[in-house]
Each structure stands twice: as C-alpha cells, then as structure tokens.
C-alpha cells in the first residue's frame, strides 16, 4: 500500500502489507511521523491511497461506491487523536452522533434534537463504563483532554462497530489513567468481540497489553510479530535516531 502526501514527493507509507483477523487486538508503534495515523485512517476508509489495495471482509475499498463506503464506515469506529468532538454540543449529542451514519438526514436530526430514552440510557451506560457518566449533559468544549478522549471512545462504541481503530487514545492523559483506559478498551473489545487496532507512543503499554505489535518507521513496517517474540533490541532499533536528524 502507498499513500501519497500531496505536495511532497515521498509517499507516507510504502510496502505496508498487514492482515488483521476479526477480533484481533494489535498495537501500532513507531516514532513520530512514521505514518501510524495515516495507516489507521487508510484502514478506516478515511483516506485515499495512490497505489495498492485495502480490503475489509475481502472487499476492496476502491471497488465501493460512496454508498458502499458509508455502509462500511458504520462498521468501523475511529477514535481520533484530537477527539474531533462537536464542541458546542453536549456530550450526549456527541455520543449519539456515532449512529448518524446509520440514520437518514431527518431521522438523524430527530435523534439529536429529541433523543430517544433508550439511546440516552445506552450512552449513559457507555460513559459509566468509561468512568465519566456524570458528564452526559456537559458541553463538549468544557471537558478536559482525558474526558474528551473518553467521549470520543464512547461515540465509537455507541456506533456498535465491528472494529475500533484508535489513534493515540491515551496521548492526552497521564500514564496511570492511560493504562486504565487501555485496559477498559481491551476488556470492552473482548466482551463484544471487536477488532481493535491502537496506535501508541508508549512502547511499554503496547508490550504489556497487546498480543501483537506492528512497528512502523518512515512509512515501512519494521516488524509485525506476536509481542512475546519481540525483545528490547527490536524496539531500540525502531526508535533509534538517524544520524544528524532530530526525529522524523
């Protein structure tokens, strides 16, 4: 797979070839600028590719029309690194927005303006699982970074997808809370049989929680193995600075 960055000659991702089984949990690690976000977006049908193919359930994204793409996206929950909430609306609206892809324009508007009790109860239960049930009716722009991150996750869960792709979901919180959140995500994923792909800055977290790690560096896969088969040297090499450069 190759993803081109418009305006730059060098592709962001090159020669990436990975397969993920349903229900699998894997961590994506690598230095800044390695292409983790781009890879996640491309996998979630959120970014076009210039070459290569991405297939979900054996169907290539390129073969889908816009209707098919939208249907596919309802199955893939995405947790953005910058949360991407609607700041002027309440948390409840933001969580309920997770199902806007499954409703028509009018039905969606009704579900946002006059939410059904069952929807609100489900949103409340999800937020409760994530430890912020009391924020249900708070405006999204008054949340802390960690709370916003959880709301973004609740939105993805409310969508009832088959897979969740999370881009640095714990970047905005302190390590203890980050571990807690990752544990909750894995627990939810197991309970619901979700596929989970999470990009992480924290290598220790990836190693201690995820059965499979994919290491990405400068747009290429450096390793893709069960975590048990990886050792310190693999990670040291992954993050080693190039001579004369600062990061990416």
């Amino acid at each position, binding site marked *: 797979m190759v993803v081109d960055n418009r305006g730059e000659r060098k592709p962001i991702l090159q020669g990436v070839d990975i397969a993920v089984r349903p229900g699998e949990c894997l961590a994506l690690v690598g230095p800044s600028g390695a292409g983790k976000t781009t890879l996640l977006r491309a996998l979630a049908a959120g970014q076009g590719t210039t070459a290569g193919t991405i297939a979900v359930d054996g169907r290539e994204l*390129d073969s889908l029309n816009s209707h098919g793409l939208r249907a596919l996206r309802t199955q893939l929950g995405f947790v953005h690194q910058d949360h991407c909430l609607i700041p002027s609306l309440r948390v409840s609206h933001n969580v309920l927005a997770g199902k806007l892809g499954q409703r028509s324009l009018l039905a969606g508007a009704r579900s946002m303006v006059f939410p059904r009790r069952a929807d609100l109860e489900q949103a409340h239960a999800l937020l409760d699982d994530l430890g912020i049930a009391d924020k249900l009716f708070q405006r999204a722009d008054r949340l802390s970074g960690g709370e916003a991150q959880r709301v973004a996750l609740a939105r993805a869960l409310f969508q009832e997808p088959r897979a969740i792709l999370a881009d640095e979901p714990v970047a905005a919180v302190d390590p203890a809370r980050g571990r807690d959140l990752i544990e909750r995500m894995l627990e939810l994923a197991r309970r619901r049989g979700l596929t989970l792909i999470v990009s992480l800055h924290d290598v220790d977290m990836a190693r201690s929680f995820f059965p499979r790690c994919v290491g990405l560096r400068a747009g290429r896969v450096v390793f893709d193995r069960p975590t048990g088969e990886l050792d310190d040297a693999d990670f040291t090499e992954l993050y080693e600075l190039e001579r004369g450069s600062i990061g990416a």
Partner: protein
Amino acid sequence: MRERWTGVPGGRRTGVLAALALVGIVAWVQLGLAPSSLVPRPGGVQIARNFFAGALSPALDYQAGDVPAGAPPFLLRLLSALWSTILYAAAAVALALPAGLLLGFLASSSWWAVDPVCGSRRRARRSALAGTAQALLRVFIAALRSVHELLWAVVFLAAMGLSPVTGVLALAIPYSGTFAKVFSEMLDEAPTDSARALRGVGAAPATIFLWGNLPRALPDMAAYVFYRFECAIRASAVLGFFGFPTIGYFLRASFEDTQYREVWSYLYALLALVLLLEVWSSALRRRFVA
C-alpha cells in the same frame, strides 16, 4: 544531508505593503485632498457651532413654538420613528437571512465536499461539476451585493412607489448577498475536525454538513447576524431620507428646519438602540462561545 542556507525568503510582503501605500498616496493626490479644505466657509462656523451646541441639550419637546395642531408629542414621535426603523430592519433581515443561509450553504466548499476515498475518476468529474455550480452561485451572490441598498431603494421607488415592501426589498436584496458571502466563508474557515469524525461514522454528506460543519461556524454566524441587523437599522434610518417613515425622515426634516436639538435627539436615540443591540449580542455570544 544538511540543507543549504538560502537566506531570508524574498521581500514579497514589503512589496505588497509598498503597493498599498502607493495606492493611498495616489488617491489623495488625485482627489486634491488638503487640510485647508477643512476650513469652513464664512457663516459655516456659526452653523457648525449651533449644530454641535445641540449635542449638549438634545430636545425633549418640539424645539419650535409653532407646532401644527394634532401633532403627537415629540418624544412619542421619536419613539414611533424608532419603532418603524426597527420594523423595516427586522423585516429586511427576516427576508435576507433565510435567503442568505440557503445561498451561503450552496456557495460553501464544505457543502460540495467530496469523499476523499471514492474512486479518483469519479472524484474529478464531481469536482468539476461542484466547481462550476459554486462559481455560478458566487457570481449571482456578487451581483446581489454589487448594488447598494440605497440604490435599490431609488430604483424600486421609481418602479413601485413608496410602500413598505419597496423599502424592505431594497434592504433585503443586498443583505441576502452579504449574508451568503460571509456565511459561506465562515463555513469554509471553521475547523473541519467534527466533519471528519462524522464522515468516519459513515454519515451522508448532508448529515456531515448539518452536524459537522454548521455547528462549528454557528457562533460566528449568529454574531454576524446581529452585526448585520445593526447595519440594517442604520440603513433603515437612512431610508427615511427617501420618504419612508423611519427616523431618517424626521431627522432630515428637523435638520432642514435647523432644529439641531431635535436632530441630536434622533441621533442619540439611534445610538441608544445600537448600544442596546451590542449588549444583547455580546451576552448571546458569551453563551455561545463558553
């Protein structure tokens, strides 16, 4: 590999600033503007002095003794003039706002946003279509704006005579265009992250626009509506100069009768109205933003 230092990037900004300054200088020279023109004609000093003296003692009653029988008390006349000024402005904004919203939505790029993943050939065709539609709309919107509301008033007066519809339409047409232009720009300048998230959950384009793009621009749009309402109040006041029963009608009459204290009463009333709007809109903006 180390990149070679190529020096400070060219002085383009300096060039633009110099060009702008040059335009200003040329305009002043061409118009022959000189401070000496500000020295008033003989007799003018007295008029100016009388006029500004009125500022300190605005009239609370008719300034002249000979008031025609049956005329309402001065303050009542002032209030009713103020009220009809508001009515003209409100009717015009009520007409221009829906039109401006519709045109603004259709002229914004976020309305025509194309899915970044859909096959590239389809994307190119749709973009060309969207580009053409958008360009045509923008020309239409520019046409609405290009004629000032007072010119529309002159044209409509000649065509349809003096009626409230004439005045309201004269204000509403250019205001629709201005709303449309500014709304479309606000929609396109607002952050697109919410829209990205909604595209990610599989929402259709109209849903993305309604819940992703619109809420990000709405606080700015609301504040702008208040600002335009303020502009409409001023324009509605000036419509009075053409005979509409807004505050400008009475202001002009008092001015021509050299009743400067009455003139100042009307001006202060307008000022109070605009200040009141300002207080209201900033209170609303606070609620929107925080």
